[in-house]
């Protein structure tokens, strides 16, 4: 009779946390503090404590103001901030309550944060009584690792998982993958699973990291619901020489004649990069008015604020060790490529970010036994708050919420039986690229996707016609996947990762095709053929799931504005619904 150990090494735990970055470690710590009897295992494809997006992020950490109206003020700001009215405001209200203790909890976990002389986070000047801010050490994950080990949490580094295991009734009961050094199969069996894997984060620029969407893919295949994927492309203005952001410099862009693009095309300053500005930049270059440049000698108010040039050390957006890191990067670039100077040439960079897992206020997905803390659910929980530089706050707060919820669940749950046929099938799928007679490499597909991030007409200024062309490209990419080959753990990972990156790409453009309006900045959904925001017809979420036939299924859901406090001007409660929000 077949035994699970015939397929690979088996690890059991009450709770399995996939992803040992900031949100995964906080989830584990919070769950363990809730119930010290729980056996918790955290796994990561890298080395836990030195990997994770938090070790690359630079934008400090926030918490909701302790002002009595802090939650209400922050909610009012965030609903309007980037993707207006797309938030789940009931989620956001609960989130902001937990977020109030965020920095305090990080200090409790041994994380070094920069605060004022009274050890308090200092209020952000441009969002009074709403959000407070502190810096956080570059070694935040090492500090959390140390705290987790003291609590008795088990850590397993350099294991990459690609699929989730389910019981006969569809509950998630584990995961399967391989170790990144010897390619040995690893099987994980648990009562509850938290996927803290971040999403698909496709870019290639300095100071950054890559995410391929393997967590998104694994959750999609077990039936998790996705949401808001059309808001997945970010655009930023960068130094052409270094390809790193000119924080807050986007209102200061001039053409070769010295004409300011914001004045010429927009007429008022913006607090984020807008599709209109990107459109203007492309137009100027197309008519020969390039190169575009920025005068850093005369910073405007946005540059002074977002560029962080006017802040005291205790509240600056980067902690001292992060400043040292950025300084190092600049010095190296200056040595080999030359200093950017005070009037640098500028261009744009585009990033694909898909973090769409729909979660409830416990950070639990619609799939039994499955949680999704951290960046992977920032679109799906309709928070979007990290876009103002609070990815770290989002990681820790959703970790706190998930830990509080997953601990009692796991304590009350039993181990469901592993389906050996499922393990065999998934193992065969994972290792398939090792045994193919073909010789095609994932780089072929990654290069195709990379071209998208150069082309604003595909990623930022979308149109129905362009999207139809992209569908054809996606089909071409999908045809290559079954011919990909690998010969070591790294190339095997890439073969599996690229398939999930294609999946994420398809989600973006299918939902962008469906949403026939324009909405949002910084992570905009912009349609050249539908350039106006349409609050009459599009106060709706677009949800995505894998249909019963295995095909991608999209459907809309009315945003229940009648239950929410923050509404668009002129909003009328639709027929069949009554006012449900009472202050």
């Amino acid at each position, binding site marked *: 009779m077949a035994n699970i150990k015939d397929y690979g090494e088996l690890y059991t735990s009450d709770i399995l946390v996939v992803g040992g970055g900031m949100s995964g470690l906080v989830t584990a710590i919070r769950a363990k503090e809730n119930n010290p009897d729980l056996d918790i295992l955290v796994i990561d494809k890298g080395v836990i404590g*030195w990997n994770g997006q938090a070790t690359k992020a630079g934008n400090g950490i926030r918490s909701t103001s302790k002002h009595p109206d802090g939650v209400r003020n922050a909610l009012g700001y965030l609903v309007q901030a980037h993707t207006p009215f797309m938030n789940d405001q009931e989620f956001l209200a609960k989130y902001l309550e937990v977020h109030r203790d965020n920095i305090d909890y990080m200090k409790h976990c041994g994380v070094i944060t920069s605060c004022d002389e009274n050890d308090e986070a200092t209020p952000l000047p441009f969002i009074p009584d709403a959000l407070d801010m502190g810096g956080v050490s570059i070694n935040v994950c090492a500090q959390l690792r140390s705290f987790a080990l003291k609590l008795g949490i088990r850590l397993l580094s350099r294991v990459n998982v690609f699929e989730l295991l389910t019981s006969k009734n569809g509950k998630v009961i584990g995961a399967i993958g391989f170790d990144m050094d010897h390619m040995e199969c690893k099987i994980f069996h648990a009562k509850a699973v938290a996927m803290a894997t971040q999403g698909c984060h496709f870019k*290639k*620029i300095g100071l950054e*990291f890559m995410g391929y969407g393997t967590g998104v893919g694994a959750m999609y295949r077990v039936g998790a619901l996705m949401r808001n994927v059309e808001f997945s492309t970010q655009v930023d203005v960068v130094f052409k020489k270094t390809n790193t952001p000119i924080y807050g410099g986007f209102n200061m862009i001039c053409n070769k004649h010295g004409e300011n693009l914001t004045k010429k095309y927009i007429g008022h300053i913006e607090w984020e990069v807008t599709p209109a500005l990107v459109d203007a930049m492309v137009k100027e270059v197309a008519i020969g008015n390039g190169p575009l440049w920025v005068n850093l000698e005369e910073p405007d108010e946005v540059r002074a604020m977002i560029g962080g040039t006017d802040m005291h050390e205790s509240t600056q957006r980067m902690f001292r060790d992060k400043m040292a890191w950025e300084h190092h990067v600049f010095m190296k670039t200056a040595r080999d*490529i030359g200093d950017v100077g005070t009037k640098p040439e500028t261009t744009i960079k585009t990033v694909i970010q898909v973090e769409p897992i729909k979660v409830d206020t416990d950070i639990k997905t619609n799939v039994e036994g499955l949680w999704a803390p951290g960046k992977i659910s920032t679109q799906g929980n309709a928070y979007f708050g990290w876009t103002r530089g609070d990815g770290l706050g989002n990681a820790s707060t959703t970790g706190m919420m998930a830990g509080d919820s997953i601990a009692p669940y796991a304590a009350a749950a039993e181990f469901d039986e592993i389906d050996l046929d499922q393990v065999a099938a998934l193992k065969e799928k994972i290792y398939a690229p090792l045994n193919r007679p073909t010789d095609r490499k994932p780089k072929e597909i990654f*290069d195709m996707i990379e071209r998208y991030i150069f082309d604003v007409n595909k990623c930022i200024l979308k149109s129905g016609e362009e999207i139809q062309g992209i569908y054809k490209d996606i089909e071409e990419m999908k045809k290559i996947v079954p011919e990909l080959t690998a010969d070591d753990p790294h190339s095997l990972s890439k073969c599996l990762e690229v398939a999930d990156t294609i999946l994420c790409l398809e989600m973006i453009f299918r939902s962008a095709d469906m949403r026939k309006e324009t909405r949002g900045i910084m992570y905009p959904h912009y349609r050249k053929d539908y350039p106006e925001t349409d609050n009459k017809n599009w106060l709706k979420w677009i949800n995505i799931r894998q249909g019963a036939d295995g095909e991608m299924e999209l459907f809309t859901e009315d945003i229940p504005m009648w239950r929410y406090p923050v509404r668009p001007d002129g909003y009328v409660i639709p027929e069949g619904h009554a006012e449900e929000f009472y202050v």
Partner: protein
Amino acid sequence: MIVENKGQQQSVKFVVDTDRCCGCRRCIRRCMENVWHWDEENGHAYPKNPDECVLCYQCEMDCLNNVIDIHPISTLQVDPLEYSAGLVKLNNE
């Protein structure tokens, strides 16, 4: 050891003084992109998957014996504005 990568947007040259590698393996520990590996035969770390480098320099900053020197050759090979502007012209023709 000198290794160059072939990233599409950026190209990088790793200059590694492998004779002085002390074996701390901090580069391997830090790299999120799985660039660095250990050469068992010769007893030093090396950039086995250089194409994955995202130019964060953290391996270099963590290196205990300061033997890693990363040279960015180009951070941006295609200007997205020029590329996009070119496409607009093509579509209009």
